[in-house]
């Protein structure tokens, strides 16, 4: 046998050993199939920059037939879908701040007269914090509208006047930076806790701990608490530097922000604990983290508007803590909302944490059988 074929034989030995080990590591083997499959579906569904059926509201002060015609013309574009009606512009602004709708169409009392001259006929109040949503609504600005009573078509510069709230310059940093808090926390919190527990098991520390008076729940809590502080440090870095470098405003109250962050960190750490009860090695914990991270980036509203996604993708998004937190953090930081405005998302995070800890503690038995 010459040197070359000897080398081939040795390479072959390593190749087959590697394949054999791979087939015995079930979770890793599963990832080989699941990662491309899930990625394909997620990207295919989520990446949809054509926003459709944005939930918007209307304040109709004119109460005319023509106003209703305008609304149905707008609905026909399929960009917006009128779901709410408000009595006053003040109520409308409140609804936007709370995140109930992304925009409200205000039809003024002098709507009839405006139709006859060159002034814009109505006003859009738009939540500009999500630039992609803002852009979709801005595209409506020049939509032609004719009531059918004009003698001749009136040449208007803009059909609508636009008031872009929270992000008038339409800078994407303002949208990205608060969202990034959710992504970074998802990544580090889930990975740290899952790896921390799996590491103890891998190194044999756990075998000793379970013979001591320490309880499973005590191990769990003890493992979580340090990372709450790690998470708070990370949030301070992102929002602090975001404020200094990218001029991201922090409009909400700081105590509301800290409470919201705390709820999300707890939910993410719980997710990490759940991962640690499934993963057997640190490598598996890492893979599962990535597996959770991808939908958190793509479906949570961080990169693509939640409203642009198909129903099925929205259901998955609802199950992810990141989706709820991105809603909360954008509302508090950019729109100055309070937790009271955001109760459904807050309760969801709390519920997730409580159920998750119960599930993790029951899966993590102090006995070995």
């Amino acid at each position, binding site marked *: 046998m010459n040197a070359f074929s000897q080398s081939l034989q040795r390479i072959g030995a390593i190749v087959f050993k590697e394949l054999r080990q791979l087939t015995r590591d079930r979770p890793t083997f599963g990832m080989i199939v699941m990662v491309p499959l899930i990625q394909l579906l997620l990207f295919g569904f989520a990446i949809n920059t054509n926003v459709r059926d944005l939930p918007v509201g209307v304040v109709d002060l004119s109460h005319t037939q023509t106003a209703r015609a305008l609304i149905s013309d707008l609905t026909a574009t399929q960009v917006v879908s009128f779901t709410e009606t408000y009595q006053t512009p003040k109520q409308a602004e409140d609804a936007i701040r709370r995140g109930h709708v992304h925009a409200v169409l205000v039809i003024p009392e002098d709507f009839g007269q405006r139709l006859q001259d060159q002034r814009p006929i109505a006003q859009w109040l738009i939540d500009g914090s999500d630039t992609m949503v803002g852009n979709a609504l801005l595209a409506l600005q020049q939509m032609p509208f004719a009531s059918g009573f004009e003698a001749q078509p009136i040449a208007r510069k803009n059909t609508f006047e636009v008031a872009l709230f929270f992000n008038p310059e339409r800078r994407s940093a303002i949208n990205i930076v608060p969202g990034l808090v959710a992504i970074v926390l998802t990544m580090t919190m889930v990975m740290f806790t899952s790896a921390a527990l799996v590491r103890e098991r891998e*190194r*044999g*520390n*756990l*075998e*000793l*701990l*379970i*013979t*001591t*008076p*320490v309880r499973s729940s005590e191990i769990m809590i003890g493992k979580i608490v340090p990372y709450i502080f790690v998470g708070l440090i990370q949030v301070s870095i992102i929002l602090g530097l975001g404020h200094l470098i990218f001029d991201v405003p922090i409009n909400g109250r700081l105590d509301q922000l800290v409470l919201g962050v705390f709820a999300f960190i707890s939910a993410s750490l719980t997710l990490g604990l759940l991962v640690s009860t499934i993963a057997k090695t640190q490598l598996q914990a890492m893979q599962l983290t990535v597996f959770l991270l991808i939908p958190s980036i793509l479906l949570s509203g961080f990169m693509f508007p939640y409203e642009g996604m198909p129903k099925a993708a929205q259901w998955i998004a609802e199950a992810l803590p990141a989706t709820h937190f991105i809603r909360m953090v954008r509302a508090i930081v950019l729109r100055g909302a309070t937790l009271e405005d955001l109760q459904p998302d807050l309760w969801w995070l709390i519920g997730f944490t409580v159920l998750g800890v119960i599930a993790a503690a029951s899966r993590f038995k*102090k*006995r*070995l*059988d």
Partner: protein
Amino acid sequence: MTDPLLGKEKTVAQDWAIETIGMSRRFGDFVAVDQLDLRIPHKTIYGFLGPNGCGKSTSMRLITGLLTPSAGSVRVLGMDIPEQAELLRRRLGYMTQKFSLYDDLTVQENLRFMAQIYNLESRSVKQLIDSQLSRYQLDERKTRLAGALSGGQRQRLALAAATLHQPELLILDEPTSAVDPENRRDFWEKLFDLCDSGTTILVSTHYMDEAERCHGLAIMESGVKRADGAPAQLMRELGARVVEIDGENLRLLKQQLGELPEVVSTAQQGTHLRVLIKESIDEPESWLRTTHPALVANRQIHAVRPSLEDVFVHCTGSNAADGQGARQ
């Protein structure tokens, strides 16, 4: 195997440190521990001797309540296990086969951690840790990371951690498998000190010299207890006779002797062959000389005192059934 004394002694309430009756554990179809009866008195060192996979570790985990027995009962320090396992943990010290303290904490930090886990009083903890450090010769290394210690030092640290809360029962799972002979001797001195001050110690090993140091011993194989008793008693009641034969061509002689039905086992030890012969042969030397003169011509034959290894060989492997028969 039935113990004729079992029925009688059950009514006499004697206080054992560990008492198991018919303790069994199955994993699926595999029987890891089969009908194990143990009675371990207080303040003694009791050994599990057996090859890897014989059920030593599983038995220890059943006794500590880390595993639930499939059948049988377990009582440890007067508590029913696994029901009262949580209560037992405060009175139990456990040393795992693999070093299981934290490599990235120092010697002192590891001990302080364990002290807190056991809720030891913080006022006396510093003193307690200092005395453990000097008892186990770790003073000079107290600020070293545990991961940077030698095998013997790690072992002493693990023992120091396991005895920090002064447990009544100490369970050691192959504690010396990664330790050199000198440190091993040292380690056993510490165990006798502990035993002397009232600790009951259960230790598993596959070293004969360690097993011989125990007060009591159970020889295990495939989850079954093959023999138990004090090492001296086990050697005395071996149920076979031992001779040493020297001369040339020992490999061939070993093969030839091995074919004789009266020979239980043969093992070469340097320049001589150690031969176990059935108890029914009263005078092994003259029996060999008269019935197999060709084999032993020009060879010296000595009758010798049985060793623990002889006991082990005699009651495990293919000899197990014979050995049991001869013993009862």
